């Protein structure tokens, strides 16, 4: 049983050396293992900021609050320690790392997270299967990480990593956007497999209820003005889809 708690989190985006702007204005959220929390909210409300700040992105700075994973202070950990502690972020815009092959990258990541190098043969089999499940041709293994990948391929690559790294808590930032119906299904199945395999808790950031038909949320939160503005059950997603965020944008502004 894992508990992931965000308490009173405030964070700035670092615009330049001497310019910053507060985006997160006191976020509270608790995710227990096995739970899926959908986060929905208008553009620019700070959803990605929340995801990046928790992961330790260098362009964001947390000014107040706590993030705890089973009571451990995540904010005191280095970025890589957070990942090894069981936190995973699937990014809205995954980063291209030229020249670092996908297979090299994945082997290094798996080695780091599992604490030991996997047996070569076993790993290559595991990788092959995981790639197949995410509809990747085996030729991708030799390509640079996300280098020249299409938007959909980048998203599938994030979920491929999710399955290999088996985190305790995953933050999925608009993993569904830019996916066609087939890719959406493939990605959702991947998320559900990871949930089943190790009771992963999920923070699912999305604009659309489409993915919620495949990955069922237990809770839905409206994110506006840098904080959680309202929380409810799955039915809240339907309301939002029907009515939009207008009501919250006014509150947030």
């Amino acid at each position: 049983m894992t508990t992931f708690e965000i308490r009173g989190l405030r964070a700035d985006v670092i615009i330049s050396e001497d310019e910053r702007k507060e985006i997160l204005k006191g976020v509270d959220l608790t995710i227990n293992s096995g739970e899926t929390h959908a986060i929905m909210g208008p553009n620019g409300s700070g959803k990605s900021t929340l995801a990046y700040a928790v992961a330790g992105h260098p362009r964001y700075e947390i000014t107040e609050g706590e993030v705890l994973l089973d009571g451990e202070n995540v904010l005191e950990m280095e970025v890589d320690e957070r990942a090894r502690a069981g936190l995973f972020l699937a990014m809205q815009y995954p980063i291209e790392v030229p020249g670092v092959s996908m297979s090299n990258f994945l082997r290094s990541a798996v080695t780091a997270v599992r604490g030991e190098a996997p047996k070569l043969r076993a790993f290559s089999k595991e990788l092959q299967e995981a790639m197949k499940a995410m509809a990747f041709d085996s030729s991708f293994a030799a390509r640079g990480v996300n280098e020249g990948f299409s938007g959909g391929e980048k998203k599938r690559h994030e979920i491929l990593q999710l399955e290999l790294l088996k985190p305790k808590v995953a933050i999925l930032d608009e993993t569904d956007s830019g996916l066609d119906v087939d890719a959406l299904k493939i990605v959702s199945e991947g998320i559900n497999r990871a949930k089943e395999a190790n009771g992963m808790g999920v923070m699912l950031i999305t604009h659309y209820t489409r993915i919620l038909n495949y990955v069922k949320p237990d809770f839905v939160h409206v994110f506006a003005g840098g904080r959680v503005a309202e929380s409810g059950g799955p039915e809240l997603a339907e309301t939002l889809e029907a009515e939009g965020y207008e009501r919250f944008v006014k509150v947030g502004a």
Partner: protein
Amino acid sequence: MATPNLGIKEHSHGGGLPVSKLDVHGSFDPNDFPKPTGREEEWRFTPLRRLRGLHDGRNIADGVVKVEMSAPEGVTVETVGRDDERLARSFLPTDRVSALAYQSFTEAVVVTVGKDTRADEPVFIRVTGTEQGDAYGHVLVRAEQFSSATVVLEYAGTSIYADNVEFVVDDGARLDVVSLQDWDRDSVHVSHQYTKVGRDAHYRSVVITLGGDLVRLSPKVGYTGPGGNAELYGLYFTGAGQHHEHRSLVDHNVSHTRSRVDYKGALSGEDAHSVWIGDVIIGEDTKGTDSYENNRNLVLTDGARVDSVPNLEIFSGEVEGAGHASTSGRLDDIHLFYLQSRGIPADEARRLVIRGFFAEIINRIEVPELRQRITDEVEEKLAFHD
């Protein structure tokens, strides 16, 4: 990958100084070139004092180098005297050190890849400095019509060395060259590589500079027929106090020729200094030239200095493509963030990204054991840097 305020001096353009055309201002007489003062365009980046006399004509020739060769079937390798008439037909020295080197060598190496020969193993020429002192060399490699071969030039040991290397790629031939400057830390090397690319011939060079106190290498390419293709790749890893200078010149003096120049370097440590000058000339009345050059530098620490000067001179209106790019900067912290966010520790993430940066060039070397060795040496230098 652009981070300002690193104490990096970068030049994006050459400032309109005319490039001398290949062969036009050349001479075998060192006295035709005044002794450099450091103010000349072609010498202003080079710390002349550290040439240890290679440019002043003092040549005492008190250094000793050992030259070893090996070649596969179909390729002949000879050691010849100064009077061999095959020498020095493909070039004229373009600066004082080149002319001095030509005046001063005693024996030359001549490699001939016979007509139609496909050499399946590389030719190796290893120059090892065994006693510090000035020394001079000359190499001529000729790939005859429709032949193909790989030549590996390796420099190691301790020396104050100047040489000229001629590569003649006859019509329809293909020549792959790897030039590895792996000198001991106290060595000085000034080298000119003069290449002539024939009709429909293909020349590919990979220059790897890791060692030495000062290495200044000038690959110069011209064409003798249409359809010629020249690819010049380079990698340098410049450590504290080292000076690595690469000055390529591609003269598209013939129509329908192609060139690619791609040099990548990393710098680490106090007073590491790298210089890349990329001159491209697209000659008068030529058509269909396709050229692109690129230089990227990764500045790993404070106190390093990069000079990067692409210089494109177009004298013809009918160009198919011509462009250049030059970037210098730190490791991208967003790349590191991505790798670290997958659990990879910071130092390993750095190594992966740097290795990735170089992989593109190293992977162009088609000699596996050499590829591995260079990778290992880069890693070693990196470990030192960590």
